[in-house]
């Protein structure tokens, strides 16, 4: 049943312009990170690690959360239109599957966007003249951490976009959350805040130093489970608003 619901969700996304955001927006931090590295070679070194700090710093704090916000808002958009909630909730489908299938799609898009971001990072590094043979093995961990943190933010945003019927407001919240996450991560409480988990997972600004990966992945799983459960609870207990 879960996969049939997921396929239905995929049908809803056909011909949607949301893919454009995932293709175009990661180009900006890649370009910006590379230009910034080349402009600051007196304080930064021309290597993959320094390029990654430039690449991930702004994207993980400001733009990936907002991007996830756009995508999650879009996933609930159709349900919030007209009287579609009546149809969704009267269909013989478990609400656990409805929320879960949207979460699976959000996770897939997070994986694709992080993968695309990594490809742009490699391209940016090569354009700057950094040799590919010294490409760091930790990049796989940065990618995995970014995806896990991204899925935790996706779970939160699916809940927010389920509760808030506006398309735009959760995107604003995501932007604000990313910036607040910057402060919370700097204070050392990043494990308690999904937006900070995203930046920690991406190892923005070299945050992996002293970071506990088991705790990080445990927190991601806990947030995903908690927001999924809250979403299901909301769908079960809350009367829908239509029209």
């Amino acid at each position, binding site marked *: 049943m879960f996969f049939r619901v997921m396929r239905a969700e995929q049908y809803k996304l056909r011909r949607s312009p949301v893919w454009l955001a995932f293709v175009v927006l990661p180009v900006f931090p890649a370009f910006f990170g590379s230009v910034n590295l080349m402009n600051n070679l007196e304080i930064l070194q021309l290597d993959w690690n320094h390029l990654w700090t430039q690449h991930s710093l702004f994207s993980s704090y400001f733009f990936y959360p907002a991007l996830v916000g756009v995508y999650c808002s879009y996933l609930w958009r159709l349900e919030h239109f007209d009287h579609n909630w009546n149809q969704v909730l009267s269909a013989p489908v478990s609400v656990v599957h409805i929320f879960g299938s949207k979460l699976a799609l959000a996770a897939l898009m997070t994986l694709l966007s992080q993968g695309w971001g990594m490809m742009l990072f490699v391209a940016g590094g090569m354009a700057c003249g950094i040799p590919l043979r010294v490409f760091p093995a930790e990049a796989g961990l940065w990618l995995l951490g970014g995806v896990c943190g991204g899925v935790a933010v996706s779970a939160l945003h699916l809940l927010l976009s389920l509760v808030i019927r506006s398309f*735009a407001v959760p995107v604003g919240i995501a932007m*604000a959350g990313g*910036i*607040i996450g910057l402060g919370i991560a700097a204070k050392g409480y990043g494990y308690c805040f999904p937006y900070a988990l995203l930046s920690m997972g991406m190892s923005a600004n070299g945050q992996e130093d002293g970071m506990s990966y088991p705790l990080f992945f445990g927190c991601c799983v806990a947030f995903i489970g908690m927001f999924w459960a809250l979403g299901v609870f909301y769908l079960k207990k809350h009367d829908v608003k239509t029209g």
Partner: protein
Amino acid sequence: MMTALRMEIWKSRRRWLWLICAALLAVELLWIFWAFHHPGEQDRQKGWLYLLYNMPLLNGVLFPVIGGTLASRVADVEHKGNTLKLLETLQTEARLFHAKLLLGMLYLLTIVVLQIVMILGMGVFYGFYGRPVLLDYVQYALFLFTACFAVYAFQLVLSMTVKNQVVPLCIGLAGSFIALLLMFLPYPLPRLLCGPYGFFGALSLVYMKDWNRDTRIFQLVRIPTPWGSFAVLLVWMVVIYLVGRIVLHRKEL
């Protein structure tokens, strides 16, 4: 015109537009708290200038998205209710556009005034030395309001033209990127050419120089007021307004 504006205010009831503005101010307040949580001697000495240096960066990152969100909330009500057909038979589309621009202007003016009060209050709270140069803060407020309004007007045209609000919001997100990117570029000219987004940096009144990586000592310099850049922004606003009028006039209902 006042009737149209009053209608917009009625339509915006319970749409939580004030909450978007409050969220922006709350994030900025948190940012200042974080930046100055243990102010040193250098922070207190240069605090008033440092605020004028730091805030345009934050406004540039946040405002394209927040302005896009505000514009989307104001415009989307017509798409959802399919009300453009009705409204534009009762009044010209220009009148509706003007009313929505005015509504946004009211919110933006409130944001700018509250932001100025907030940052001046924070400066007093942290005990910055000396007094702020009020003329600098008045100019900062004028430039911030104008740049924000230009972004809002641009996003409003997009949100009213395109029914699917993903598109204007993604453009707003890209605008945040562009604003940030342009602030770090060493060349000033691109800031004037990339739509309204580059003006958060182009209208900055303070420039940092001689930053020492080891001692973390830097100099902040009050540069001459960039009236030329402000004039270019006004030209952009006229272009956005005229193009918006034409696009909305030609839009098929």
